[in-house]
């Protein structure tokens, strides 16, 4: 089990958040309905072979407490085949495509937060197989009710006169014993929808090993939350560290940092 929920004393059993399939995963309608056929065509290349699969677990709270920060965890470590990429889409969002995750040498687990404009499902579509077009798409989803406004509101940073202070600050830590890497990057993640504030958001982030070779990579889009926090899961050899973190945004800023593992 890739999840660490049981690490907390007296963890609820069963856990308060569990993966769902079928209509329960997308808010009650048929899994193959709403914006999904269109998103499947546009963002997955209209594959013939796809199915809702419980091995792709998407966890989220049932309701968004804060539409600007809706946390998710995708766990596809139960998928037997190799996973080329996981495409994260939001059913009802002005920017439906949120993230493309290429796990590479990391495990297919990703924690992140997104902005929600209106209640709906977030879907994680995992493309299996070693070669493009060779596999099939396994899809998981979680529905979140939200009152919205997360994408069209200005970033909280703009309420402060000193919003640029601390911009780009990268915090991170590697836990070799569990393989977890968690990072947080100070970034306004402006979508461009708020009046008078141009789009300014991350476009890519990668983890590199000690030799500079890529471990895993993310393609990032507007819905990613302000000051995004991300969780990766590394196999034991890579979790010993060090791991370098590299990121870029749409205005050309570059961000870099490095976490050490076991001493």
């Amino acid at each position, binding site marked *: 089990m890739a*999840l*660490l*929920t*049981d*690490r*907390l*004393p*007296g*963890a*609820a059993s069963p*856990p*308060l*958040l*569990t993966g769902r399939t079928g209509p329960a995963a997308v808010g009650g309608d048929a899994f193959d309905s709403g914006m999904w056929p269109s998103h499947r065509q546009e963002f997955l290349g209209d594959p013939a072979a796809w199915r809702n699969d419980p091995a792709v677990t998407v*966890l*989220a*709270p049932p309701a968004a*407490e*804060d539409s600007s*920060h809706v*946390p*998710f*965890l995708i766990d596809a470590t139960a998928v037997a085949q190799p996973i080329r990429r996981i495409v994260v889409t939001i059913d009802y969002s002005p920017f439906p495509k949120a993230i493309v995750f290429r796990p590479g040498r990391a495990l297919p687990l990703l*924690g992140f*937060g997104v902005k929600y404009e209106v209640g709906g499902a977030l879907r994680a579509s995992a493309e299996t197989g070693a070669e493009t077009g060779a596999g099939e798409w396994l899809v998981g989803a979680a529905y979140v009710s939200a*009152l919205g*406004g997360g994408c069209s509101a200005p970033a909280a940073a703009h309420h402060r006169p000193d919003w640029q202070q601390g*911009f*780009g*600050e*990268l*915090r*991170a*830590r590697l*836990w070799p014993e*569990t393989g*977890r890497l*968690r*990072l*947080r990057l100070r970034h306004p993640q402006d979508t461009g929808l708020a009046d008078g504030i141009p789009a300014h958001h991350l476009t890519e982030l990668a983890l590199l090993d000690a030799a500079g070779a890529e471990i895993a990579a993310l393609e990032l889009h507007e819905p990613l939350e302000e*000051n995004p*926090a991300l*969780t990766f899961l590394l196999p034991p050899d890579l979790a010993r560290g060090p791991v370098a*973190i590299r990121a870029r945004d749409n205005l050309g*800023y*570059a*961000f*870099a*940092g*490095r*976490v050490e593992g076991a001493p």
Partner: protein
Amino acid sequence: MSLSRRALLAGAAVLTLPLPIFAQPRRYGLQPIEVADGIWMIEGRREVFTRENGGDIVNVALLATDQGALVVDSGSTAAMGAEIRAFADQRLGGLVATINTHHHPDHWFGNAPLADRPVLALAATSATCREYAQDYAETLYAILGSWISGTRTMPATGEVEAGPRAIGGRTLRMIPLAGHTAADLAILDEATGVLVAGDLVFLDRAPSLPDADFATWLAALDRLEGLGPAGVVPGHGRFHRAGEGIAQTRAYLRATRDRLAMAADLGLTPIEAMAAGPVPEFAGLGANPEEYLRSVVRRFGDHETLALPVVGGA
């Protein structure tokens, strides 16, 4: 002539038909109880906002004075405020003033039916009410539906200052604190020793932490305990005479803070911290696990800042 008479009769007949339920004005049936001499309390349900409870989730205090009732916190909707007003008018000789203890909407969205008399709050509270009125209104209209019809947001216009204040023959001590939010007012009634604690004290209802600062809140609880109140009207939960509300709120804050800090230090995602649920001792409190889930979303980042060192930048 006869035609209009027939029309009138037809109209009268229509009026005798039962109205559909949604067209009837919503009534909460609030039940004020006299918990100490001249101090009345309306206890809200120990729940989060839902369409079923209509926002009847908050405690309201009415302090009888020579000039009418002093209302402390006005509820979540205009309809709640109107029921509070009716009780003050019918039983307590009218209304002298209203005080809002802090900016959360269940404590001031009922102001409008009380606003022909002074409505007071800490200056910082009124400012925050004005800032978030629109956001709160949109959220509550979506959750509460018709319960909140006709509710206009009317933040306090008068200011409460620290120290003693005599109102209608009753001497009150105004105690500005913080921790539940950036500005929380507690009020001690000198005659009875009853403390109207606002949301600094919860009992058997999970404390609400979206705007909380743990250390500041814990310090505020120490202050309140030092007053040695003879009774406490908590913001949510039952009236009590011993110090159990302060003790339980303190224990909940410490345990929840420690749980979130541990989760961040172990490298959990907020989703895993949520899935683990509240500290087991407090899992059965009213409004849990909903309040715990909210706490993770709002407070996890504070603990993560401590757990994750700076490793790079732009």
